């Protein structure tokens, strides 16, 4: 089976981010980047499916700049067979354009099952999986917490409000993975060494018109410093007249 795993390089959520000079993106200086945590579940699931089937190829793909090779190498070290960087120089993309670019590339490679994270933790759009499935005309299950394959039919479980939904459908499919699906493995030394010998190809990303324009990006307003009040009366007056909470 041909499994495709889509991963994205994102800023670590505990990084202190700064807005770039043009006011429309992030300044990458001093920010730690890593693989989108939800994509790790997708990568682990692909390995487990291949292990269970005893055969299959995992190709991991990322849209971004040359920096994203680090995350692709990490996937190769975890166990992916090959990696492809869709190189667009690392410009910011919305979920719709990303889906169009990846869908265009997928037409050039064999694929039966596409796994990805439920959302990237940078923009938190969560649109990519369903848009990709729509463009490909594939079945789609999102935010999956359990996944099995019976021949060419998948069975996926999703957490829904107050319960769990079970869906099944023949492949091909796009599945987006949620926390709880599995426990992603760390690469072993052997995996890291083997990753050096696995193919990592760079392909120019198809040029698409952006569906969205990032107009501006701003940090949340800074909190004003706390104030020490002199008496209970003053506190009550401040809560009533200034904060207007009582």
């Amino acid at each position, binding site marked *: 089976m041909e499994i495709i795993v889509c991963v994205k390089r994102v800023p670590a959520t505990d990084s202190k981010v700064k807005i770039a000079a043009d006011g429309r993106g992030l300044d990458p200086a001093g920010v730690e980047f890593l693989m989108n945590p939800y994509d790790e579940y997708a990568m682990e699931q692909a390995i487990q499916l291949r292990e269970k089937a005893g055969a299959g190829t995992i190709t991991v793909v990322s849209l971004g700049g040359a920096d994203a090779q680090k995350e692709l190498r990490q996937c190769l070290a975890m166990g992916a067979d090959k990696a492809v960087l869709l190189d667009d120089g690392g410009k910011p993309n919305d979920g719709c354009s990303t889906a169009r670019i990846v869908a265009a590339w997928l037409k050039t490679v064999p694929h039966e099952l596409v796994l990805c994270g439920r959302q990237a933790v940078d923009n938190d759009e969560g649109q990519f999986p369903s848009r990709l499935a729509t463009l490909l005309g594939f079945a789609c299950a999102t935010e999956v917490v359990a996944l099995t394959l019976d021949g060419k039919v998948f069975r996926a479980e999703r957490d829904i409000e107050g319960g769990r939904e079970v869906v099944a459908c023949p492949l091909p499919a796009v599945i987006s993975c949620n926390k709880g699906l599995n426990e992603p*493995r760390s*690469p072993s*030394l052997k995996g890291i060494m083997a990753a050096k010998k696995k193919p990592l190809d760079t392909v120019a990303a198809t040029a698409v018109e952006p569906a969205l324009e990032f107009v501006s990006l701003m940090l949340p307003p800074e909190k004003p410093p706390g104030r020490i009040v002199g008496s209970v009366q003053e506190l009550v007056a401040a809560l009533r007249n200034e904060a207007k909470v009582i």
Partner: protein
Amino acid sequence: MPRRIDHYLATLVPEEKLDFYAVVRDFADEEIAPRILKWEREHQLVPDDAIAKMGELGLFGLPIAEEYGGQGGDMTDLVLMGLAIGYHSQSVAITPGAAISLGAKPLQLCGTDAQKKAHLPDLAAGRRMFVFGLSEPGRGSDAANPQVTAVRKGDHWVISGEKCWSTNAHWASHVIVHALTAPDRPHGKRSTCFIVPMDEKGVFYQEMSGKRVWTMSSTGSIMFDEVKVPSDAILGEENDGFKVMVTTLNGGRLFVASLALASAAFALDKLRVYAEERIQFDDKPIGRFQRVQDVVIDLDILVERNVTWLMHCCRLYDEGRLDREQAAKVKVDSSRAASELVALAMEAAGGVACLDEFGLMRHHDDLFVTRVGEGSNFALKDLIVRPLRLRD
């Protein structure tokens, strides 16, 4: 906050080795560091689930060849693991460390094909652990003359006596026993190593009590009451046990040096952060005082200098060119300098260093082991001085 030692390692180690170090470091930060205090306060050994996780990472099979299910790594990888985990706890790091450098290593160096096939795959996966029975109640530095004896009786051997200070005894499946087999032969040619299952009749293990260093590491006393083993239990050649022991310990010393430097690296980061936070005398952080800066600087110098030196020794070891004196020197110097500077770091921090949660007391205590373990510094200086003498 990034560890300062990482800055130096980045210039010393190839990229793929650095990637491996980062995986183990992140594992230690996320899975070990948050739990150490609880384990310590509850007087636990490293719990089974933590050992299992280290096994999944492949840490127990680091320098074991891939054909035996290992990771195919080298001494540099082993030492990087020591630095990555020892930063939080020497006793956690020594668990896979001793399993490799004292348990699997003698088998790798001196085992027959059959012995390697029988044990190495399980050792590499962390499903089985070997312990090296070397020290005895009456034999420490003079380990070449064991009081444990093995006597040939027909086609088998009978082992009697007691070993102690055996690291990892609690988890051990087998013990490599260094026993006296030919008392009349010359020094270095009178002992033999045997592989003995821990569940063999007549083998009794007891955890040594009262140990206040490396508290999460298992240290056992193992009794042999006329234990019968076949001749193919011999590891290496008969009456060549001393050689098995010496070649094994050489590499282990580099690992112990890595633990000492891991403690120094922790103390460096702990003190430089605390010195910025702790405000005294006219609202100044204590890091503005030159006597406090001196300790930070000396720790920084030690870490950069000795990590560079240690990585150099690892390269020589991996090329088969490391002298015994070189391994001894980097161990002696790292353990002694780290002990002295960690004590000074505690003094600079003040009373807070007495608290277990501050972490420095753990490293201070554990550093004592690096001075007396894997060859005591006093005894190792005997080795170091040999090439310096003009006459014997």
